[in-house]
């Protein structure tokens, strides 16, 4: 059932710029892994309830209350670029 993986498209979805050598190697490696999944993807499985928590329990959400956490400066302390208390990024469009 496996078809050829479109590595350029997957890399674009993942926001990863690959060199042509990486594309070749990763296409081969990923195809091999995906072939290994064939037995699982072809298995007849009943419609089981699927859950995020491995023990099937609901998430414990915190109370919606304000509390003291990072200061503004702490939150920005690892930013590659920050000006006037804000993260700086290149323009979104050319």
């Amino acid at each position, binding site marked *: 059932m496996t078809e050829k993986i479109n590595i350029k498209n997957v890399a674009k979805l993942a*926001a990863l710029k690959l060199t042509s050598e990486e594309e070749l190697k990763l296409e081969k490696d990923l195809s091999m892994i995906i072939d290994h999944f064939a037995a699982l993807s072809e298995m007849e499985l009943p419609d089981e309830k699927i859950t995020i928590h*491995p023990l099937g329990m609901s998430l414990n959400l915190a109370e919606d209350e304000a509390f003291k956490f990072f200061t503004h400066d702490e939150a920005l302390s690892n930013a590659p670029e920050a000006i006037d208390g804000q993260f700086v990024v290149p323009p979104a469009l050319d």
Partner: protein
Amino acid sequence: MDHYKLPISEINKLFKDKKLKPSELYTEVFERTASTESIIHGHLSLFQEENIKKATDADERFLKGDELGVLDGIPVAIKDNINISGYATTCSSQMLSNYISPYDATVISKLKEEGVIFTGKTNLDEFAMGSSTENSAFGPTKNPWDPSRVPGGSSGGSAAVVSAGSAIASLGSDTGGSIRQPASFCGVVGFKPTYGTVSRYGLVAFASSLDQIGPITNNVSDAKILYNSIRGHDPFDATSLKDVNVKQPKLEKAKIGIIKELMEDGISEDAKSEVHKVSKLLESQGHEIIEVSLPLTKMSISIYYLIAPAECSANLSRFDGVRYGNRVNGNTSYEMMEATRAEGFGPEVKKRILLGTYALSAGYYDAFYGQALKARSMMKKEFTETFEQVDYLISPTTPSDPFKFGEKSDNQLEMYMSDLCTIPANLVGMPAISIPTGLSSSGLPLSVQIMSPFNTDNTLLDFAQNLESEVSFNALPQIQGDGE
């Protein structure tokens, strides 16, 4: 007399009886680090300067009888994907080589309250993805038993430093065996607690439904002490469990199941004979041994390598060069993001992000990720039903003894298979412990893994401690150049 292999409870008694000071122990452990680190490369950073004061502070507390607990003054190493405020958390990745954490992980806050001295941060496969530490951006860790062999991974640094005696204990994280497999390769104890019993807050996320922090120690008693210090509900982690009462497995005359599928093809004769040896020992203690079949364990590698990369592709999207980590400039935000991720991530991380992105993409979701989630639920059902018949499950921890550097790095599926025995416990969320039980025909450590139903962690630890005392594994690595 050397103290670095003594159980924590005995060290604590020596501190209390004024026969040993925390500063003397720290000096001993640091000297041990100095003589072995150039061979082992277990630590990525050492906190020696500040620790001298912390150790003398602990001396004072013991002198005045004001000690904080059994872990006060104990040197513990921390895997470098767990945040300690004011120190680097690199995840062994170029992406985070300049990241300084502004906060403590919950496990770190808890250990600080107990007076633990952190030796430093330990090496791992980049973002905890790997089974050998060969994927670390800062060079691999070597196995103390044989530096030509891997220490396992991803918590290879944490396991190697305990084995080498350059920390009394350590914390690792386990997503598919990353505590137990390196513990086995390095001849020490590794414990993966029930999912949700230890907060993941402050652990850099790899696969959130599988990741769990746990201890790597010289013995089961130390694992129990550390586990009980770091466990407990945490409102900062939405998957953190509140205490629930569940039926505990028996400690005496227990029924133990050997997992048939983990004693078949792909498991070395050495690893199988270790399980048979331990089973006979358990029988002689009055326990009953039966063989059980859990057919979906054969699918666990496929299930895991769909779920874990899918979660990793989402979790690692946060590394975009905006809020933290290194940045490579570009003309637009998207170009900057693509270039940053291309330079910051290593080959295995890129591969897993792409695999997860593919498995989650339109047209493939149901066939791959959806199918893996269904199979995971079925697997959980198989384990739950099996635990209605038995108290514990037993298997090898690893299919073989430690492999050589480069032996599996060109064969990705073979590398992934080294987690065959450990992955099931992550998929079903149950606790599992690896304890060293003997040496292979090559003189390298071998272990068995014991699993128990969810939330029976302390009973599992008690059971493992009884077994450990019967096995009496006391071999130690002879590290070249350590003068022993």
